C-alpha cells in the first residue's frame, strides 16, 4: 500500500483567525486521552483514521499575507476513504473551520457555500478534495512501510525484547539458535512470521522512479540542445566554431569573475559546485552520452520530416547538430545560467534578523519535544525573478525525482531523522510550504540540516525571500547556521493539532524493527547473516 502525502491550504478570513485557532486547539484538548494535552499522542483519533501516519492542522500567520489554514496528511492507500474517515472523525469541526476560511473565487465557491451555509449537513470531504495539493517534492524516511506493518513490527520487537530480558536468555546460544528459538516462541502470537516479507519497494516502482528521473532530465537537457542545433543549421562548422569559441571564452571570463562568493558570504570551501562536477565527471560524461544517444533518433527523424533528407544524411546531420548542441550547452548555456544566477545572488537581499512574534515562538516551543518526534510547518515567499522561480520549480522537481530514485534507505546524506516531509507551492506558486515530521528536537534537526545537508537545503530554499546569501546555487545559504535557523523559525507557525501513528518510534527504530522482523521471518539464516541480525537486538 502506497504512502501518500497531501496538503490543503486555504486562506482564512482575518477576522476569524482567533476562532479558527480556538477550533484547532479544542480539537487537541478535547481529544487527547492518556497523556492529556501532549501533541502527537491520540490513540482514539488514530483508531478512527486507520491508514494515517501523520496528520497536522495549523494556521499560518504573517504580516505579509492573510492567515492560511493548512491541513497535512500522510496516509496509506486511497485518498477518498481517508478524507471520509477524517470527516467522520472531525466533520463538525472541519465545517466550522471552513466557515472561518475565505470563500474560494474559483469553481469550488458553490461547493463551499453549500457546505458552510447555516444548517448545512453536506459533507466537507468533497470540498477538501477540490483543494488537495500533491507535493512538488516529498521524502519518506521509512519508504515502503505501511502503518500496519510499522506497528506490527514494533510490537514484535517489543515481544523479542521481553523474551530476551536482560540478555541472560541467549547468552550461551549461537545467533541462529537464538533466532530460531525466538521464531518458534513468537510464531503463535505473530503468525505472519511464517510469511515471506513483502518487498518494500517493488522492482517496478524502482524502475519507474529511475525512468521518471531520466525522462525529466532528458526533457530539460534536450531543450537546452536546441540553440546549438539551430545555429548549426544556419552557419557552417568553421564559423560556428569561431562563434562558440568567442562566446564561451567571454562567458567563462564573466563566470570566473563572479563565481566566487562575496565578502562575508563564504562559509564553506568555495567552488563546491565546480569541484562536485569535476569529481563526478564520469557521471556528467555518461549523462551527455545518454543524452546524445537518446536525442539522436529524435533529431534525425526531425531532419527527415522537416528538411526532407534521406535517413543516412539525416543521421549524419543530426549527429552534427547534437554535437554543437552539447557544445553550446556545456560551454555557454550552463555557465550562462550560472552567471545569471550569480548576478541575482550578488544583488539578493537576505534577512539577518527576521522578527519572530514572541507569543508564536513561545507557543511553538511549548508544543515541541513531548515525544521523540516533532513537527514543523513553514511558509516562505519566493523571490520573483524568472530564473529563481525556475530553479525553485524545476529544481524542486528534479531533487524530488533524484531523491526518490537514489535514496532507498531513508538516509539524506548521513542523517536519517525524517519520517515524512514535503514541499508544495501555494498561492499560485508564489509561496513555498514545507511540512516535516521528524525525530529529535527542532534544534537538532536543523543542526543536522546545516551540517549534513546544507547544499540540498540551499538549493531548495535559496530562491526564498530573506534566505541567507547563497553562492552558485548550493553553496553558503543554509551553512550560515544561526541566520538560517532564525530565518526558518520566522517562517514557521505553531502546529495546533498534530497526530503521529507511532509517536514512540524513530526512523532508525522502525528500520531496526524491520530488520529484526525480516530476520525472524526467514526459515534459516547463514551464521554471518544471523550474527548481523543479532547485532540489532
Amino acid at each position: 500500500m502506497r504512502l501518500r502525502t497531501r496538503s490543503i491550504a486555504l486562506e482564512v478570513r482575518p477576522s476569524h483567525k482567533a476562532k479558527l485557532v480556538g477550533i484547532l486547539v479544542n480539537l487537541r484538548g478535547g481529544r487527547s486521552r492518556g497523556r492529556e494535552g501532549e501533541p502527537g499522542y491520540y490513540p482514539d483519533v488514530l483508531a478512527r483514521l486507520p491508514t494515517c501516519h501523520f496528520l497536522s492542522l495549523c494556521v499560518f500567520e504573517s504580516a505579509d499575507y492573510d492567515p492560511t489554514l493548512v491541513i497535512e496528511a500522510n496516509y496509506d492507500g486511497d485518498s477518498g476513504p481517508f478524507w471520509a474517515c477524517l470527516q467522520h472523525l472531525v466533520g463538525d469541526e472541519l465545517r466550522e473551520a471552513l466557515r472561518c476560511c475565505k470563500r474560494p473565487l474559483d469553481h469550488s465557491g458553490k461547493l463551499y457555500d453549500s457546505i458552510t451555509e447555516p444548517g448545512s449537513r453536506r459533507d466537507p470531504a468533497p470540498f477538501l478534495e477540490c483543494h488537495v495539493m500533491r507535493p512538488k517534492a516529498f521524502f519518506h524516511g521509512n519508504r515502503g512501510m505501511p502503518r500496519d506493518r510499522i506497528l506490527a513490527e514494533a510490537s514484535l520487537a517489543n515481544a523479542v525484547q521481553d523474551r530476551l530480558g536482560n540478555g541472560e536468555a541467549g547468552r550461551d546460544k549461537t545467533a541462529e539458535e537464538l533466532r530460531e528459538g525466538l521464531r518458534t516462541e513468537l510464531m503463535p502470537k505473530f503468525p505472519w512470521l511464517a510469511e515471506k516479507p513483502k518487498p518494500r519497494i517493488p522492482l517496478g516502482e524502482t524502475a519507474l522512479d529511475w525512468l521518471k528521473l531520466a525522462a525529466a532530465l532528458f526533457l530539460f537537457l534536450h531543450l537546452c540542445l536546441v540553440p546549438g542545433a539551430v545555429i548549426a543549421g544556419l552557419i557552417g562548422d568553421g564559423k560556428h566554431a569561431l562563434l562558440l569559441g568567442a562566446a564561451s571564452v567571454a562567458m567563462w571570463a564573466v563566470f570566473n569573475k563572479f563565481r566566487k562568493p562575496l565578502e562575508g558570504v563564504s562559509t564553506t570551501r568555495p567552488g563546491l559546485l565546480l569541484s562536485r562536477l569535476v569529481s563526478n565527471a564520469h557521471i556528467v560524461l555518461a549523462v551527455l552520452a545518454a543524452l546524445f544517444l537518446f536525442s539522436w533518433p529524435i533529431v534525425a527523424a526531425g531532419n527527415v520530416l522537416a528538411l526532407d533528407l534521406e535517413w543516412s544524411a539525416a543521421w549524419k546531420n543530426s549527429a552534427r547538430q547534437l554535437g554543437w548542441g552539447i557544445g553550446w550547452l556545456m560551454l555557454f548555456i550552463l555557465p550562462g545560467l550560472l552567471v545569471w544566477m550569480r548576478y541575482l545572488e550578488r544583488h539578493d537581499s537576505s534577512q539577518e534578523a527576521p522578527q519572530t512574534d514572541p507569543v508564536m515562538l513561545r507557543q511553538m516551543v511549548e508544543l515541541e519535544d513531548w515525544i521523540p518526534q516533532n513537527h514543523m510547518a513553514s511558509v516562505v515567499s519566493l523571490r520573483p525573478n524568472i530564473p529563481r522561480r525556475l530553479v525553485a520549480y524545476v529544481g524542486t522537481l528534479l531533487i524530488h525525482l533524484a531523491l526518490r530514485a537514489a535514496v532507498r534507505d531513508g538516509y539524506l546524506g548521513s542523517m536519517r531523522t525524517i519520517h515524512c516531509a514535503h514541499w508544495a507551492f501555494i498561492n499560485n506558486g508564489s509561496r513555498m510550504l514545507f511540512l516535516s515530521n521528524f525525530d529529535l528536537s527542532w534544534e537538532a534537526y536543523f543542526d543536522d540540516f546545516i551540517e549534513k545537508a546544507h547544499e540540498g537545503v540551499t538549493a531548495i530554499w535559496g530562491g526564498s525571500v530573506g534566505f541567507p546569501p547563497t553562492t552558485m546555487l548550493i553553496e553558503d545559504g543554509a551553512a550560515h547556521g544561526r541566520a538560517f535557523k532564525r530565518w526558518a523559525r520566522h517562517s514557521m507557525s505553531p502546529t495546533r493539532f498534530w497526530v503521529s501513528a507511532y509517536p514512540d518510534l524513530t526512523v532508525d527504530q522502525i528500520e531496526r524493527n524491520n530488520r529484526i522482523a525480516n530476520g525472524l521471518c526467514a526459515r534459516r539464516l547463514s551464521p554471518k547473516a544471523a550474527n548481523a541480525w543479532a547485532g540489532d537486538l
Partner: protein
Amino acid sequence: MSPCQEHVLRSGPGKFKQWVIGRLRAALPAIFALLRAVWPIAKIGKTHLVSLHDDVREVMLTDCAFEVPYGTKLKVLMEGQTVFVGMRDSPGYRSQLDRLQSLARKGDMERLAAAAQERAEEIVSAAEGELEVVDTLFRTVTFDVLEEYFGVTPPREGDMRVWSTRMFEYQFLASDKSLKDEILQLAPSLLRHIEDIIQGRLANGDDSEDDYLGRALAKQRENAQDWDDLFIRTMLSALMIGGPPQPPMVLPQAIEQLLRRPGALATAHEAATKGDEELVFGHIFEALRFDPISPILPRKATRDYIIAEGTRRAHKVSKGDTVVVAIQSAMSDPRRIPAPKEFIPTRQHWEYMHFGLGLHECFGRHINRAIFPAICMPLLRRKNLRRAEGPGGHLSFKGLFPAELKVRFDR
C-alpha cells in the same frame, strides 16, 4: 419448509419471476458500479437514482428537502393516525419520537440480548444437527423477545407473525390488490388486539414496568394527555410492524453470505466461541453489506433542490420528484469505502447505512445491535457449520422475503 412458514409469507411470485428477482439481486453490485462510473445520478421520468456515497449521504441528511413517502400507507394501517415514521422534521415528529425514546431504560439491551441468546440456544440445542434457520430460529426468537419487550402479547386468534409481516410488506414493499384486501382485515385486528391488551392491563391494575407498554401506562398515570391510549396503541403497533419482521429477513441473508465465505465464517465462529459479541455483530453487518435487506430507500422532494451542487455532476431535482437512494451502492463505493470488495468485519460505523441515516435512522438500531449477535451466536458457535444437503441448503426467497435456509452442524 415448515407448515407455519408456509403461511407467514405469501405464496410469492411464479418461478420465473422469482428467478428474475434473484438474478437482479445478484447483479445489483455490478449495476451500481456501472451507474457510479457513468451515470451517478440517473434520471428516468420523475425518478432520480442516486448511487455515489457522497450524494446518498447528502440526500439522506437533507431531510428539509427530501421527505420519506411512508405517510399515506401508514395512515391506512393506523386508521388515520399519523406516526413519526412518515413525518417531516417538526415539533410533532420530535415529540412522538422523544416520548417513544423515553420508554427505553438502562439495562434493557443487556436483558434483551440475554433473553434472545437463551431462546436461540434452546432452539439450536434442540435441533439435532440440522436446523431451518429463517423461521425456526430467527423469526421465532425475534418475535418472542420483541413481543415481550414491547409488551404486545400474541393474539389468541390469529398470528402476530403473519399480521406484522404482511403489514410490513404492504408498508414498504408491495401494494397489490390481494395484499391491500388482506391489510384492510389485518390492520384493525392488530389495533384492536393492542387496545385489548391496554384495557386488560388497566383493568388488572397491572403496574409492572418491565416492558414498553407497562412503562407507557406508568407515564399515562403521570401525564394522561401526552400518553393517551390512542397514542400508546399507535406507537406499539408501529413498532410491531416496522420491527420484528426484519431480523428474520436480515439474519438469514447474513448467514447465507457467511456460508459463501469460509474464511469469514471461520472468524465469525471464533468470535462467537470467545463470546466476542461486538465482532460477531461486525461479521453480520459486514455480511449484509454484500446483500442488504434494502438496497435502496425512497424519498420525495419537498422543494426544488440541486444534488451535488458545486460539482460537475450537479443535478436538479424538482419539487414532487421521487429520489431513490442506493444505500447498497453507497456502502460499496470505493471512492469512500476502503477496500469495498473485501470482507472486513471491523469496519467503522459510518461505513454502513443498513439502518438508514439522518432524521429517520432506524429507531430499533440499538435493539438490533443487541439481538443480532445474541440470536446468531448459539448457531455460529457450533462446530463445522455448513449448508444442509439439497436445495434447502441455499437460502431461498418468496418475493423479497427469505423463505428457507437449512444448515447442519456438529453437535
